[in-house]
């Protein structure tokens, strides 16, 4: 069973159809990159999986979105529980105006976990998973804003991991970072995939090639091609994909 699956998904913002008949499957412990020009629907598609699109007015969704076999748009679905299972990291690092420690502990606390020992252990484990622990272990109680941009983004990843999701969504997680911080995030994605299923939206073609196992190319709301990343970047089957990845349009 695929860990994430969409079947004939259509999504409308009012009269505008942003996604057209998207069917895709993502297996456990894989990284899937979603690529395509701005406005192609890739971020909209990503936001399906933690129901972030619900926050936008006039959104209508058709088709099925299954996470671990469960239709997450069925009536009575507990969205809070879904968002524990599906974590998200955004383009710009967005730490809370709190200490490094409290940023990571936040998800635990809002879910009612306040046991000091459990919280400390989880914060340390999450910061280690996010490859940040060695850089912040002596400033856990300093403001998160004192960290560099790259460190802040890894802090946000640690925050997402602290609530033990099984899926991590990343929306251009390295686009605001310098090359060294970007490399760290990419290395981290490699490590994280051992325990999580990752879906990443990126405009950086080389990054998609470096970090993902599978790539989906979106264009004007359609999934043009989906396959193994190595095949997409060496021998794409659709001319539109070839033109996009070789920089001939978009």
């Amino acid at each position, binding site marked *: 069973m695929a860990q994430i699956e969409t079947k004939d998904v259509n999504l409308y913002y009012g009269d505008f159809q942003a996604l057209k008949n998207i069917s895709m499957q993502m297996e456990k412990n894989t990284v899937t990159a979603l690529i395509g020009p701005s406005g192609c629907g890739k971020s909209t598609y990503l936001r399906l999986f933690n129901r972030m699109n619900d926050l936008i007015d006039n959104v209508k969704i058709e088709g099925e979105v299954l996470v671990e076999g469960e239709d997450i748009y069925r009536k009575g679905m507990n969205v809070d529980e879904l968002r524990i299972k599906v974590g998200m990291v955004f383009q710009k690092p967005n730490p809370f105006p709190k200490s490094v420690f409290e940023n990571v502990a936040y998800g635990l606390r809002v879910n009612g976990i306040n046991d000091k020992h459990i919280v400390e252990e989880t914060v340390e484990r999450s910061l280690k998973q996010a490859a940040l622990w060695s850089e912040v272990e002596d400033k856990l109680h300093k403001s998160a804003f004192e960290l560099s941009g790259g460190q802040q983004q890894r802090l946000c990843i640690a925050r997402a991991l602290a609530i033990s999701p099984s899926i991590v969504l990343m929306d251009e997680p390295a686009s605001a970072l310098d090359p060294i911080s970007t490399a760290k995030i990419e290395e981290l994605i490699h490590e994280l995939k051992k325990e999580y299923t990752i879906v990443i939206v990126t405009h950086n073609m080389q990054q998609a090639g470096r970090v993902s196992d599978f790539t989906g190319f979106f264009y004007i709301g359609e999934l043009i091609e989906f396959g193994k990343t190595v095949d997409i*970047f*060496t*021998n*794409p089957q659709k001319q539109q994909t*070839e033109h996009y990845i*070789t920089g001939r349009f978009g």
Partner: protein
Amino acid sequence: MTHLETELSNLRLELNEMWELVISQVKESREALLNFDKEAASEILFKEKLVDVFELKLYRDCENIIALYNPVASDLRLTLAIIKIVLNLERIADFAKGIAKFIAKSPRDVINPELLKISHSEELLTSALAMLTDAKTSLDNENSRMAISIFAKDSLIDEITKESNKVIGAYILQYPEEVDEALNMHNIIRKIERMGDHCNNIAEEIVFYIEAKVLKHNKAARK
């Protein structure tokens, strides 16, 4: 046209120049052999240095394109194919040089016309030349069928070459005083056969670029 397209277009122009030079080297080596023309042979030896310059320049340009533009898909296949085509062109030019060396260094001023005839060296060189030219045309026109047709031409060269041991052996028995020339001619036939093999390699690279298929070690796919 994107910057990468311009770079690849320039790379192809440069490759074409090298290819034309190698074609002319093979053509000249055929004429030099048939006429036993020592002056033409010296010219080939001189021009060989130009081939080496092209080789190094094209390698550097391919390396730069990969490093600076990160080509993917057909752009990457073209760049990789060009690296290997250049390698094979240089080897072909080396064999033309080998033929020219034999002529330039021979103590004789003429070659026995019978040796030329029984060795089929003219037909062999003409076939190798046709393979080399067809390969160039197939890349220019991005025609993989034409590239695949080159393999059949190589079979003809291989057949003639197979007979050469017997034929040259018989010649030596008939003209024992020309044993050196006969052995050199045998060597030339081997060089031409290798030219054909390198043209095959080039054809494989062209198919790889156009169709993303790897034909190396896959005889069934060559038909």
